[in-house]
């Protein structure tokens, strides 16, 4: 039958089987702060945080188990898989029981979380904003001694004492990715870049718009082609969208996708078109080569928090703001294949980050204005 490791072959994604012994795939997220916050602050939510007693064995049943639910495919090699991988990695490292359920339909979000409580997990990890409604389970008696963690609820439901969430501002790293792209284009004298995403919905289109502003800030006469395929997982369309851009002479591409990213990158590599990768760290990928990674997959935020959880230090009832240029993640990293341009790009990234943090640049204004 079909068996064998997914770990060996899929490269570029954090490796599971390396386990606690191997290099920590989320090490990049666990480093020290990279900068200091300026006057600009992300939205705040009211509410006091507390550290529950007995963490990590919240329910005091003598063992620790955590459960992950996410609306996407946990084998997509990128966004959704990162949560599962972070949980698995921590599980292996600390000897926890980990259960993962992917492709959870919206209708089952709440019940899936409650089910995890029933199975007496100590922590429920809601892997993406689509399933945000699942945090309401935290108010149920059955979940009273379970720690709820949500990736990016962004205001609905409102932050309260029953759960902890991570928050990041996608527009800022989209802008910085644009800046990095622009510097590379300037150095290589490229005038046209491509941006490809799935659904033509704001969570993609605003990113595209801000990315473009970033590019233009470096190369004012550049063209950025934005294509929306209408489908987040349709690899065929994603690849052909790239082909269209390629035949119109783009010199660089940023596929803003989950699963289809690597497929596009492979095509781009074959055509010698440099690629920016996201949302995981693609710099070490063996299936395709990237010049930069935009790192913002939920697993990166979850991994350090799980370490805190293991050490009994994870606060409940607050929003953890992950800020570009302040925290290790999110981040825009140049890869070694950027070659001699790496240094210039890095400098520009630093510059742009501090401009965002000191309020000189407001990505949200860029998106709407």
């Amino acid at each position: 039958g079909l068996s064998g490791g997914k770990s060996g072959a899929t490269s570029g994604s954090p490796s599971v089987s390396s386990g606690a012994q191997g290099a920590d795939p989320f090490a990049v997220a666990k480093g020290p702060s990279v900068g200091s916050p300026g006057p600009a602050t992300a939205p705040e939510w009211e509410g006091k945080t507390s550290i529950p007693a007995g963490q990590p064995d919240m329910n005091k049943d003598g063992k620790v188990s955590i459960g992950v639910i996410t609306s996407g495919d946990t084998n997509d090699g990128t966004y959704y898989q990162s949560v599962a991988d972070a949980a698995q990695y921590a599980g292996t490292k600390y000897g926890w029981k980990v259960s993962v359920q992917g492709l959870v339909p919206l209708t089952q979000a709440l019940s899936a979380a409650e089910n995890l409580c029933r199975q007496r997990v100590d922590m429920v990890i809601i892997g993406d904003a689509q399933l945000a409604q699942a945090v309401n389970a935290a108010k149920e008696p059955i979940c009273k001694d379970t720690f709820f963690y949500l990736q990016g609820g962004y205001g609905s439901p409102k932050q309260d004492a029953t759960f902890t969430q991570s928050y990041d501002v996608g527009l800022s790293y989209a802008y910085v990715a644009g800046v990095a792209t622009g510097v590379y284009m300037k150095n290589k004298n490229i005038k046209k870049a491509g941006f490809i995403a799935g659904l033509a919905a704001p969570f993609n289109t605003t990113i595209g718009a801000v990315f473009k502003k970033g590019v233009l800030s470096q190369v004012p006469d550049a063209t950025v082609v934005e294509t929306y395929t209408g489908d987040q997982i349709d690899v065929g369309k994603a690849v052909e969208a790239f082909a269209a851009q390629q035949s119109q002479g783009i010199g660089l591409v940023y596929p803003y996708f989950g699963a289809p990213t690597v497929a596009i990158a492979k095509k781009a590599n074959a055509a010698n078109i440099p690629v920016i990768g996201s949302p995981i760290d693609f710099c070490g990928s063996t299936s395709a080569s990237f010049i930069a990674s935009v790192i913002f997959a939920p697993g990166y935020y979850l991994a350090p928090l799980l370490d805190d959880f293991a050490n009994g230090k994870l606060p409940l009832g607050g929003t953890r703001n992950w800020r570009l240029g302040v925290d290790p993640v999110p981040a825009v990293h140049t890869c070694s294949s950027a070659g001699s341009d790496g240094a210039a790009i890095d400098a520009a990234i630093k510059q742009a980050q501090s401009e965002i943090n000191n309020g000189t640049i407001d990505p949200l204004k860029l998106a709407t204005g």
Partner: protein
Amino acid sequence: MSGLDVPEKTKESSPADRSRAVVRPGGLGAELAAALRANAGSAASQVGMFVLFLGIGLAVGLLLSWSTGHSPTVVLADLLDGSFGNAMSISYTLSFAAPLLLVAAGTVICMQAGQFNIGQEGQVTLGAVGAGFVVFNISGPAIVVIPLAFAAAAVAGGLWAGLVALLKFTRGVNIVVSSLLFVFLAEQLMVWLISGSGPLHDDGEGVLGAGTASQSPTVPAGAELPTPHLFGLDVPSGFLIAAVAAIVVAWVLRSTLVGYRLRILGHSPVVAHTIGVSESRLGSLAVAASGAFAGAAGAVILLGQSYQLHPGTASSIGWNGLLIALAARTRIGVSAVLAIVFGAMIAGGGLLGSDNVPVDIVNVMTASIVVALLCPPVVLVALRRRRQRRAAQVSS
């Protein structure tokens, strides 16, 4: 198209004057109903068959899990525990069964009328949107808002299905294909409605900052479907609504004038025509009614399960409800049982993750169950033939 929905006149088009028509009157609907209603023996043997083939369908899924190294007993134990293991499990099961039963009940209406609408998934989506328009815009006591939301959902789902009927009866467009295509259009329509400038878009914080998510606001607490505590169980009111709706559908089809006319239409459009039934009118009504029920399922989903509209809100409820009605051979009672079985599979599937069994196995099982449940008439016919052959040999 004759197979599915020729305007009745074309059915007489059998070339030359042959007394037998190639295309039987009634088209697919009648064919289907006749084939599906094949006499299936005594009540006891029917129940026996049902249970047997349900088991066979389950077994296929268990076989797959076993062949990939997951213990079937563990899978089965999880499924049972998660669906009927305790009061809470039962409550889940009923909650998941509710929208499925609504969709299936509606599907029964159009199938019995011989209209092969398979676009329930899109109609569910539009129903959720319709309910959303009410609950996100009108605030008031639950007793007012919830019925309004259901009405809006039914209207939205019904109109969406009505479009399909309109295309069929005015332009002769194949209903299987158009209803299918409308599923994809419904999804795009909803994404537009909940994005950017769309009227159902959440103006609060977005993924990337204010107003940038593709999602609706959250259903206000007052408009959430209540979960009354009855007989020691938390019974989701969505299930009560679905159960009542199913009973009403069964009664209407059985005992009312319109139900009679609908069934006659499904069996024989020709006969229906002679007694004054207009296929375009009653057929459209049946399709629209099925859409309205699917729409109501959308309301149950929004007000009782997802509380928010996102891309993909319908969550295959439409597809599964359709399959339930077909596997039940358009019988309401069997549909209700199957909806609960499907609900149980979904609820039970929630526990599989803890044993690291991929929950996708549930899809495999439900599909196998549907196919397996189609088999009993075939088996009965085969058995009868064999008996007859035996009898003939003995008598020789």
